[in-house]
């Protein structure tokens, strides 16, 4: 399907002050985001266009244990841009934070759609299993009671934000709420609905838009391989390379020019943040390319070391980004030796020093035993042979 000018879309764009040129440019960058060549832009344009003519696709936005940060992040798509148009293609029947309906009406709308099935379920926040599910109650019931059906009947689940992916900071040690990610919950309940994981805290709206296009219009529902997911169900196009690979401060990294203290000359010069704990080398997202806040800037560009909010490990307890990356200003995470919380550097140096000290003490013993000059005299025969009463 080639891109042809389409009246319906044109008027939608015009109503939002978006030129056709902007639209095509946007299609190009979305293609890149989906891991396609920019030459796929017309295909995306055609998909979006076709979609405008179709009825809106039904969707549910379900909040788990969430700070609504991801909702906020989506809401920053406020200036009328192309992304909003794509999101308008979804008919979101339930969205706690921003929907008009309330109380029983809202719950009924949700129940209706769940019964019908075939919707896209966008899940924000942590699945709260703690206190027999009472860690999170929705409409008078533990949320985990309604989730199996909501997930089961969905055509696809998009887990937005690290919390939905693997519990996120809510699941950080000691995790009193029993927070887990959507994928883990589905696995525990044998739910086979495809889950697309979009970590970072909060989620980047650009990624949600890209997934909506993929899932709804580029055939991901018929053929999941379109999504090209990694083993953590993250789209490789977005989460396939490290931040460090694409960082604008990388030149300073290779030059060995580091910020070691905030407020220093080095910081003013925009040196690399490795020595103040930047987790860019271990974090797989394309933040440096897509950036944040309407592509204005991103963490490292604005001067903060990456805190690794995009690292995820959906099926492993303790795999959440906070446990994996805290403390944020240290290069390595903390490790727990019993109740003792410490840094790998401290453990390494302590064990190394203990070994050297033990050798020094042993050396004193060797000296005292007079073994330094050639060792003790050799035994006549092995002890075991001596015990047997003479050697061979």
């Amino acid at each position: 399907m080639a891109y042809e000018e389409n009246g319906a879309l044109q008027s939608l764009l015009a109503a939002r002050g978006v030129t056709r040129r902007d639209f095509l440019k946007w299609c190009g960058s979305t293609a890149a985001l989906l891991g396609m060549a920019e030459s796929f832009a017309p295909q995306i344009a055609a998909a979006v266009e076709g979609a405008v003519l179709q009825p809106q696709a039904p969707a549910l936005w379900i909040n788990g244990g969430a700070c609504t940060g991801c909702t906020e992040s989506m809401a920053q798509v406020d200036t009328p841009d192309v992304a909003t148009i794509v999101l308008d293609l979804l008919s979101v029947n339930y969205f706690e934070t921003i929907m008009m309906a309330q109380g029983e009406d809202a719950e009924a709308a949700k129940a209706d759609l769940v019964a019908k099935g075939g919707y896209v379920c966008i899940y924000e926040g942590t699945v709260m299993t703690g206190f027999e599910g009472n860690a999170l109650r929705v409409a008078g019931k533990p949320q985990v009671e309604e989730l199996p059906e909501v997930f089961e009947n969905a055509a696809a689940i998009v887990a937005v934000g690290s919390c939905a992916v693997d519990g996120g900071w809510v699941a950080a040690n000691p995790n009193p709420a029993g927070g887990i990610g959507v994928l883990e919950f589905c696995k525990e309940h044998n739910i086979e609905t495809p889950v697309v994981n979009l970590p970072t805290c909060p989620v980047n709206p650009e990624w949600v838009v890209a997934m909506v296009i993929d899932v709804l219009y580029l055939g991901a529902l018929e053929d999941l391989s379109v999504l090209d997911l990694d083993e953590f169900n993250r789209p490789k196009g977005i989460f396939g390379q490290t931040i460090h690979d694409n960082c604008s401060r990388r030149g300073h990294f290779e030059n060995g020019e580091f910020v070691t203290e905030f407020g220093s000359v080095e910081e003013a010069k925009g040196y690399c943040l490795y020595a103040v704990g930047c987790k860019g080398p271990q974090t797989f997202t394309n933040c440096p390319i897509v950036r944040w806040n309407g592509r204005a800037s991103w963490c490292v560009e604005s001067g903060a070391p990456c805190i690794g909010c995009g690292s995820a490990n959906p099926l492993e307890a303790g795999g959440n980004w906070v446990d994996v990356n805290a403390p944020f200003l240290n290069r390595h995470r903390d490790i727990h030796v019993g109740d003792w919380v410490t840094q790998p550097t401290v453990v390494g140096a302590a064990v190394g020093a203990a070994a050297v000290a033990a050798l020094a003490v042993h050396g004193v013993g060797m000296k005292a035993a007079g073994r330094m000059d050639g060792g003790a005299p050799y035994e006549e025969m092995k002890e075991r042979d001596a015990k047997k009463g003479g050697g061979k």
Partner: protein
Amino acid sequence: MAHPAHYREAHPMVFVLTHWINLISMVSLAFSGFYIHYPFFSGFMGVARGMHFFFMYVLVVNLTFRIIAAFFVKSAVVNGSRQQDTDIKNWLPQEANRGQMIPWLKYYLFLKKDHPLGAKYGVLQKIAYIATVPLTYVMMWTGFSLYGPYMNHPWFESSLALVGGPMNMRIIHYFMMWVFIIFTAIHAYLANVEGFAPSRLIFAWKESEGLEFDPKTGKVVGGKGH
């Protein structure tokens, strides 16, 4: 004054070379590794990483060569004798090592006065040397899992998932450096504490006089200091 004679047959020239290459690689890797861990002075990251990526190949190729050579090169069966056998046999447990584990431990804990008999390498020494082989390969594996050009390979990707991601892999790699440092400290200490004859041989390929041993029974049969 009772150390065994150290003859070149114990460490043929190739192994003197592999030991040197190994030592230089290890020191370079540990130094550049410390720098990568935390850049403690400025202006060196590119060099440190280049050094690390160069010597990691040298280390692994050298070790692999050393292992293959063990099957083809002969080395002395026991210090204080020139009689040789295929080198790999001197690495694996031998009749002369049998039952000597406890005596060695007792000797080093000052619970036994006499020096235990043994083959070219004592029991503890053998365990430690053999352990460096898998350790080095595991080090290689953890290192490649962190190495940009390879980290996306399915092998390394699944290893990263296995240990819970690249942060944990880095910490494992970092801790293993300390294992090597501690091994080397103990190894260098024990190799030299009773005299420098072993080091003269492995580094400068210089022989030293000393006790003669019967390669069959492993017992002292004469030589200087008998």
